[in-house]
Every structure is written in C-alpha cells, then in structure tokens.
C-alpha cells in the first residue's frame, strides 16, 4: 500500500471522562483516501452499568469533508458515517464489538474499548473527488447514539450528563 500521511494536525484535548479525538489523519492510495483515527473513551458509570446489564451501546462515527467558499456556504465533498456497537454477552462473559470491520469478541471491556477507539483504514473518499493544491477541511467525531437506546433510557438520558457521550468535531486541513 502506497501510504503517506497527508495531514495530522491534532491539538489533543484529553478528557478525564467522555469521548475525544486523540489523533486523526487521512492516508491515500491510488484510488481512495482512508481515515485513521484514535479516540479516547471513558464510559460513565451509568453507561458501563447499562453495558454490563446487557444493553448495547451504539456509537456513530462521522467524517465530513468540505471546501471553503468565500462567497457561499461551504461545499460538502463527502459525508460518511459508520455505526459501531459494543455489547456484553453474559453467557460467555465476553464483550462483542461490531463495526464495518466485522464482529469481534473480547474478554475484557478494555480490549473492546481499544477496538472501538482505533479506527484504521476506513475508506471514506474517492481520490478523484479532490483537486490538487486545494485545501479541504476535514472533520471527525464520534458520539453515543442515544436514539438507539431503549426508550426508558432515552427518557432517562433527556438532559442527563451521564448519557451524553460525544466528542467535539476534530477538524484538520488537507491539501492533496
């Protein structure tokens, strides 16, 4: 794989709790751009308890690429998302992870979280869409999808910090 890092400007903000982007970069081969990103996640006690009670936690990973236009709203080049899920299997006492890369099982939560936070080689963009020499703004974030929680928990989650798990948009510029 012909891989070269295009950009990696990552002002890292480490949250004691919550979700944050540690590092993100776009790498390209002849045809595609791939996203490599590293998140840091720390589940709130309520979320961890919910997970251990058998409730699946769904995360949404979003990537957006825009081109600035001084005369109009920014042009959207790409906007892709991916669903990631962690769940606990009580019978085997394993944590299951499922995402674009397939399903995996882990014995500890830490391993599952590692899997969740490490995004590698996510095909996000056709290379032909970008013009050489033009700067583009990329943005990445991950958040807990509260809508996929069971309804009672959705009600519980209304206005509650315990259930609010989302990283800020991590933005960086690439110039192919």
């Amino acid at each position, binding site marked *: 794989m012909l891989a070269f890092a295009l950009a990696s400007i990552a002002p890292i903000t480490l949250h004691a709790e919550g979700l944050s982007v540690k590092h993100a970069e776009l790498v390209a081969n002849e045809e595609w751009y791939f996203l490599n990103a590293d998140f840091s996640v720390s589940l709130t006690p309520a979320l961890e308890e919910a997970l251990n009670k058998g409730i699946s936690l769904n995360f949404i990973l979003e990537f957006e690429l825009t081109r600035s236009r001084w005369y109009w709203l920014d042009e959207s080049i790409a906007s892709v998302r991916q669903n990631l899920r962690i769940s606990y299997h009580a019978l*085997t006492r394993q944590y299951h992870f499922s995402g674009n890369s397939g399903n995996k099982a882990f014995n500890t939560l830490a391993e599952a979280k590692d899997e969740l936070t490490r995004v590698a080689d996510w095909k996000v963009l056709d290379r032909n869409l970008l013009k050489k020499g033009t700067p583009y703004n990329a943005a990445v974030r991950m958040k807990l999808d509260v809508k996929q929680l069971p309804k*009672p928990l959705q009600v519980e989650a209304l206005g509650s910090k315990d259930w609010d798990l989302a990283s800020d948009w991590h933005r960086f510029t690439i110039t192919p």
Partner: protein
Amino acid sequence: MAKLRYIVLASVGLGAVLLYMLSRASSNTAAFAEHYTLLLVLNVLLAAVLIGLIGYQIWLVKKRIRDKVFGARLTMRLIILFALMAVVPGTLIYGVSVQFLTRSIESWFDVRVDSALEGGLSLGRSVLEAQQNDLIHKAQAIAITLQEESPSSHTRLLDQLRNQLGVQEATLFSARGSVLAIATATDARDAILPQMPGPAILRAVRAQRPYSGIETITGKGLYLRAVVPVNVLSLSEDVRILQLLEPVPAKIAKDAEAVQDVYRDYKELAFSRHGLNKLFALTLTMTLLFALLSAIALAFVLSQRMSAPLGLLAEGTKAVAKGDFSPMQPVKARDELGQLMQSFNTMTRQLAETSAVVEHKQQQLEASKGYLESILAHLSSGVIAFDEKFSVKSANPIAAQLLGVDLQLLRGLNVFEWSEKAPQLAPLVQALTPRFESEGQKEWQAQIELTLDGGAKTLLVRGSRLPAEIDNGYVVVFDDVTRLIQAQRDAAWGEVARRLAHEIKNPLTPIQLSAERLAHKLAAKLDLPDAEILARATQTIVNQVAALKSMVDEFSQYARQPTLNLQTLDLNELVGEVLTLYETSPVPVQTELAPALPHVQGDSKLLRQVIHNLLQNAQDALVGRETATIRVRTELENGLAVLRVIDNGVGFPPEILARVFEPYVTTKAKGTGLGLAIVKKIVEEHGGQVEVRNIEPVGACVCIKLPCIEASSA
C-alpha cells in the same frame, strides 16, 4: 372570537394526534420509538401553546369583566365550572394511574425471578464449562499421544486421534502459527476454514499455558476452542500447537442463548425501570395536561357560545332603552334562550309599532301647536292667557313688547304680583283684576293708558273667559291704539284749524279794508280829538286783524297737507344758521355740536321752523330768570341724529307733560299752543321722534331724533 375558536380546535386536534403518536411511541411498538424525544418536545411545546392560549383567553375574559361586558361574568363562572369538572376527575384518574403504574412496574421485579434467571444463566455457563473441560482433556490426551510419536507421523495420527475422541476439528500449528496438519470430521455439516487462534493465545500456549474458550463464530453459532502445546521430543523441532474446535451442541446452545436473552432483557428492564416509570408517568402527565388544557380551552369556547345570547339580549335591551327598536339577530338555539330571544324580538316589534304611533301623534300635535304659535307670534295684538288662578300661562312676543316687559318675567306670574315686578303695569292690573273676579262677565273691553319708557301708550284691552271644558282660564287680547287715537285727534284738530282759518280769514280782509276806508274817509271830516280816536281805533283794528291773520296762518300751517321738499342737510349747519338770529337775544345760547354728525334728509325750511319754535319756547320759559341759559346739543345716538334744546326754566307742569304736543295746550298766557304741535308734526313727517321731559333740578329738555342718511343706508 371565531378565529380563536378555530385556533383552539386546531390545537386540540393537533394535540390529539401528537398524543396518540406519543402513546404509541411509549408502548413497545417501534413505530415512533425513534422520534420519542421529538414527540415529547412537540407535546411540551403544544402544551405551552395551549397554556398561552388559555392565558390569553383568561386575560380576554378579565378584560371583558373590567369593561363590564354583559355575560362576561357568566362566561368566567362557566369556565371555572368546566375546568373544575375536568380537573377533579382528571387528577383523580391521573393519581390512581400513576400509583397503579409504579406498583405494577415494581411488581415485575421479583427476587425469586432474579435468582432463577441468575441460576439458569450459571447453569448454562457450567454446562459450557464442563464441555470446555472435556475438550481440553481431550486436547491434552491427543497432545500426550503426539508427543510420544515422531513429528513426521503427526499428520497421520491427528485424524485417527480426532476420530477416536469424537472432536469435530483438530488442527496442528507450528510455533509460528502456520498450519501443519488439519483433521475434520466428515459428518461436519460444512467444512470450515481453520480458525486461527489469536496471537495472545499462541503466546500463552507457547509458554506452556493451555487455553480454552467459547466463541461465537459468525454464521456458525457457539464453538468451544481448546489450544494446548505439543512438546516434541526432537531438538531440531520447536514446540507444536494443537487446537481442537468443537461446536456446542445445538440444543444446549439454543437453551443457553434463550436463557441469556431473557436474562439480558430482564436485566435491561430492571436497569431501566426508573426510566420506564418516568416514561409512562411522562406520557400520562402529558395526557392529563393536554386533556385539562383542552377542556379549559374548549370550556372558554363553549362558555362563549352559551353566554353569547345573553350578550345579544343585553345589547337588545340597551338598544331598546335608547329607543332603537330594530330586531336582534335571531338566535338559532332551540332552547329556552332561543325562545327568550324570540319573545324579546316580538316585544321590541310591538314597542316599535306603539312608539311609531305615539311619535306620529306627537308630530301632529306639535305641528298644530307650532301653527297656532306662529299665528300668535305674527299677530299684531298682544295675547296673554291666564289660568283659573290668574297666573300667566302663556303670552306671545308682541304682548311682552307692547307691555315693555320681558316675556320670561311674566310667565307663571300671578296677575296680582305684576305690580311688584313691573310697576308700570299697575293701570292694567287695576283694569284686569275686578273683571277677572266678577264671575258673571264673560267678555269685556277697556281702554287703558300706560306710561312706559317710550312714552304714554293707550291699549285697547279685550278680555274673555275661556269655556270650562278647555281650561277654565282667561284670555286677554290687547292692541296698541296710541297712534290710532293720536291720528284721530290730529285729524280732528287739523279739520278745526282749517275751518277756523278759512272761516276767519275770509272776513278779515274786508274788516281791514273797511277800517282803513273809515279812517280815510272820516279823518278830514272830524275834528282833531275825534280824528285821533278814529285813527287809534282804526290802527287797533288793523293791528288786531294782522295778528288774527298771522294766527290764522299758523292754523293753516298746522292744517297744511304734508308736502316735504327733501334735500340732504347738515343739521349742525342748520342750527348755526338759525342761531345767528339769536345772537342779540337776552338769553345766551350755548352750543355743543357733535363734530362728525351724519347728514339727514329733510326740508330745510320746515326744520328751521322747528328749531325756531323750540328756541322760542325756551326763551319764553326763561322770561324773568336771572341765570338763564339755553343749550343746544347735537349728537349721534343709535344711528339717529339727535338735537336737544335744554333750558333751565320752570319746566312743564306734570298734568301738561303728557299732552304737550296736542294743539292749544300751552302754559303761556299768550300763545296758540300750536308750537310744539307743529314741531311734532314736522318731525314725524321726517320719520323722526320727538320727546319732552323735565330735568332735575329745574328745566326742560326737548329731544328730536332724525334718521341719518348713512345710518339708513348702512
């Protein structure tokens, strides 16, 4: 109002839809679950809108109460009643429901169920563990067998051993993880690719730590995996790794999964029961809130509808009170209110008809009254009507004018009180009262003289008693006959004077001529003394005849037919001309002439005579007085040129004053008594007025008023 009603109905309808969706979302159907939060927010917003609406409505009703709109209080009371009817049962049901809900949710969670599920799960786990242990034993058994053989025979032995022990799949890896041999049961439902153990497992096994675990293989269900080291007894060879893969029996897997699913659901439910409580309570609360708010908002609309006829009725009553009998908008209600409105309309219609009749009659009455009044007002006679107590009931304007009093003063005044308010009316009162009091006399007539500001007036008064069926009062009609009488008198005197002049003048010339002839013929024939006597007697006759002639001239002048030679005159100039003749007179004449006196239209000869006569009279009145002066004054008064001749003589005796302008009325020993009569005649021929009065302390003033040219043209 109608607009508000539609808003309320729309909000209620929308609320019903939203509530249905919310309740669907709250129950277990997945239809709206995804949008539960959105629905909740929408519902809360709608509730806020309804609260705003109700607030606005309450404000509206309160404003109406403040403005004292009829029916507003009833509306308020109805709203409160409706609201109570909604709130009390609603709250009751709500309370019971929430209680019931909380209890029933709590009752789902039982310790026994909990421990049973826990037991079921651990049973499943121990079954799986037993299987795992079994598999690892088998793996170790195979490993020990393989250790004793040379590595080259492993591939051959593997399938044999797998078959002996009844394992589905056995794989032999090198220490680096590459597959050396693989043995699969032929009855395997479908051959699978060897599942590589993870690097962590390989590492553990290389360190002589066997691994066993349960895994879910996508599309294949649960599998047991056991990995053990195979320590080869050859120095050249490294350790080998044996992996056994065995599916969990389908029955066990299914049961265990079932237990685990129920366990998970139960745990999830238990975990989220607080949220569940909240969810149902929230939905219930929303329902209650919405129901209450809708009820109150609808209550407003209904109350409006119910109290609207009352408002109409009140408006109708007000309109009737103001005299507007137009019928109200008919109300379609078939209830008692509708009947009330109908009968109200019938009543107003009848009232309108009655009032129209009354109005018509009144108009007729007023027309006839106005007709009578206008006749009375245009009458030249004064009319005064009295009631039976002799108080004035009505009088026409001419009456007041003739009597020289204010009409308002007379109205309602008893005839006996007239003397106090208007002393000049005393002669009238004296004439009226005895005739009023004498019952028998029905109609009477009298001539009364009144002395008013403008001089003496003679009134011809006719009184009559009104018939009892009309009023039982009296009516008095009077006319000013002053001028009539004066004219009669003047005409009589003129006739006398003319005849006298004619009769006397004729013999005068023969008398004079005869006397002169006597003197002429006899003078020579008589002796001196007789001649002297004759001459004296003749002279006396001639002189007396001359005096008689001049007197007769005066008479004829008085009796002369009016022929005026009118021209524009300056009164001041005329006065000056006449006064030159009096410069040498014993009595000094002072003049106060107004500078810019407008000209008058008059006969200079006649007016000169007027001034002469007045000055002559004044001089005659001053004979024998020491500080005698005559003042002649001209001025402009109310558009009239006024000439005043004032002396400080004895003045006129009161009994003469009233009749001073009549001929032959004189205070002088010698005089025809025609001077002022002629003055009056001339002035009146000029359209003027003449007044005579005595002034304090002594003296008399004669005042002549002549119309000015400017004033008359202005």
